[in-house]
Structures are given as C-alpha cells and as structure tokens.
C-alpha cells in the first residue's frame, strides 16, 4: 500500500529532524569536551534522545505504513506532532548556531 500524503509529509519531517539534530549533537559533543558542564551534558542527552526517536520514527513510517493507513485522524495527529517537533528543533538550531 502506498503511503498517504500526510504520512509521507510526516516521514519527510522526521528525516529533516534527523538532519538538523546531527550538527547539534556534533556541537554539543565538542562543547562538552571543552567545558564539561551539566548544561551541555543535558543538551547532548536531549539531542541524542530526539535523534534516536526520529530515526525510529522514520523506520516505523516505512515498516508499519499499514498501521497508519487506516485512520486519517491518526495521520493528521502524527503530522501535527512531527511538525511541532520540527519547529522546535529549527528554533534550537537557530539559537545554537549564532
């Protein structure tokens, strides 16, 4: 079964989240090596958790599409949650790269 447009969009957002989180993890690994502060350790743990979560989500989008295919409300909810996460990660990237 082909993926619906909403689920395709959600999968694309999850991939973009992964792409954005990789440099953030890189920056915070480097900064942790320099500063060893709890703040950076926390940010790093947060980014790694988000990275894993999005990677798992991408896997699920492709392996369990029939699970999502049934209900358009589920698809919509998944897309909204992915979008919100994307906005949050873009904001975090912006402040971190300044």
């Amino acid at each position, binding site marked *: 079964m082909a993926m619906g447009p909403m689920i395709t969009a959600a999968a694309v957002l999850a991939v973009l989240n992964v792409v954005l989180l990789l440099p953030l993890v890189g920056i915070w690994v480097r*900064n942790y090596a*320099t*500063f060893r502060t709890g*703040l*950076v350790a926390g940010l790093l743990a947060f980014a790694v958790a988000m990275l894993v979560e999005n990677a798992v989500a991408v896997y699920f989008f492709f392996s369990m599409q029939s699970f999502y295919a049934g209900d358009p409300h589920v698809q919509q909810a998944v897309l909204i949650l992915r979008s919100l996460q994307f906005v949050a990660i873009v904001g975090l990237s912006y402040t*971190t790269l*300044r």
Partner: protein
Amino acid sequence: MEKALWYLLTATRGGANRARIIDALSERPMNANELADRLDVGYKTIRHHMEQLEKHDIVESGDEDYAKLYFLTDRFDNYRDTFEEIVEQMDA
C-alpha cells in the same frame, strides 16, 4: 545574565571562542583586529561574536568607528565568578 552566560558560552557553536574573547579582554581592552590576531580567528567571526556579546551586555565598545576598543561591562564583572566556573575546565 547568569543564564545568558551559560548558554552563550557552553551551548553554542561559537561558545569556546567567546570565552577566549572574554579572557583576552580581562587583560586589557582590545579592538576586533587585535582579538582576531590574538585568538587566530577570522575578523568577521570576531565581529559576529562581539555583536552577540554586546547584545547580552557582556562587552561595550568605544565610540570610534575605526579600531574601536571593546571593554567588559561592569555588569559582567558582577558575574565573573560564574564565568570562572564555566571556564574552569578549559585548558589555557
């Protein structure tokens, strides 16, 4: 100021260089060119960092357009302990 220092120095991409800039300015006021030479960082990068540091009231600059000197603010001096705590781990 305290939280701004933590985020600006330890969480951002340019944080380590900004900490080195503050360290250099603790010795004496310098202009962007001197800072660039001293830290071996590009002039434009230094100007960007100075903009951020000025925005957060950590440094202030003289009025001249040419080679204006940057000073640490009195407000920053009140938080020097926080700064020392942050850079404790940094070598040299």
